[in-house]
């Protein structure tokens, strides 16, 4: 009983905090930083291509300047300047459609990271090749392979379709 209550309190205060990790960014943009905004049970603002009009406006706490602009909005819109119109739009919406659709350069970071780790693995493999692996068996030395090949030719290894087939016994060379 006690542990569950403590857990809930802990969740409320500590756990949800990571959600506001961008709180400084949000505050700079004028988003409400009251616990209300972090409460998923209350209508939220969201930037969605398929939901042009969000439940709540982006900026809800208007300062006096913004409130005056809102009053002016009640009159004819022909009297509004372009900057005022843009300001009104930005009060209600955080991002425009092109801004929502904008991609990021994250892929460069990801690809770079992948290459770094691949490179690092390559380094490890190379080090291992030099310092961990012993010598290659002597049967792979050029001298041995020469003698081996000659022996295989003499033994007529795979004379029909394989090894000795490719050796011209008359001209004493590879076909």
């Amino acid at each position, binding site marked *: 009983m006690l542990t569950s209550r403590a857990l809930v309190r802990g969740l409320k205060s500590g756990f949800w905090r990571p959600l506001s990790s961008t709180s400084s960014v949000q505050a700079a943009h004028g988003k409400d930083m009251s616990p209300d905004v972090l409460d998923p049970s209350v209508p939220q603002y969201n930037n969605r*291509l*398929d*939901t*042009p*009009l*969000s*439940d709540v*406006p982006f900026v809800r706490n208007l300062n006096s300047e913004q409130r005056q602009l809102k009053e002016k*909005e*009640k009159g*004819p*819109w*022909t*009297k*509004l300047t*372009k900057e005022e*119109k*843009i300001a*009104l*739009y930005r*009060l*209600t*919406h955080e991002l*425009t*459609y*092109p*801004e929502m*659709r*904008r991609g990021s350069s994250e892929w460069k970071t990801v690809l770079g990271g992948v290459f770094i780790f691949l490179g690092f693995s390559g380094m490890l493999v190379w080090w291992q090749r030099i310092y961990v692996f012993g010598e290659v068996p002597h049967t792979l030395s050029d001298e041995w392979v020469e003698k081996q090949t000659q022996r295989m030719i003499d033994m007529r290894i795979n004379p029909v379709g394989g090894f000795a087939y490719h050796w011209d016994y008359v001209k004493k060379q590879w076909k």
Partner: protein
Amino acid sequence: FSPVGKMFRPVVRLSTSGVRSLTRTRPCYSAPLASRCYSHAKVETDEEFDARWVTYFSKPDIDAWELKKGMNTLIGYDLVPEPKILDSALRACRRLNDLASAIRILEAVKDKSGPHKDIYPYLIQELQPTLIELGISTPEDLGMDIL
């Protein structure tokens, strides 16, 4: 086992009786080939759809929620709304003193057109009188169509 047998029996009867009996028992099928089991619901024509939405946005005392709900639903459909529906919606924005939503609606329909780049200019051309009358600037006018 017996309930299953009872279930299948009428189906078997239908298939063996053939097309002709179906047209006899169901007079609403005009062509003999229409023995498919389509729904009997009436299909709404494009004009009816448009009229319905124009009426929705034309409500004189429409409230902000209804505008949002209507617009979000409309954008959810697999179509770009006709200019007359958008005209009605823009006028609803005017009644609600909401210029931001009006501009947002224009952005949304441009986005909705997708790769068909000729739809949006047509819409703007058709809406031009309304835009001028209400004083709504397009996103292009405000420089919001570029990043």
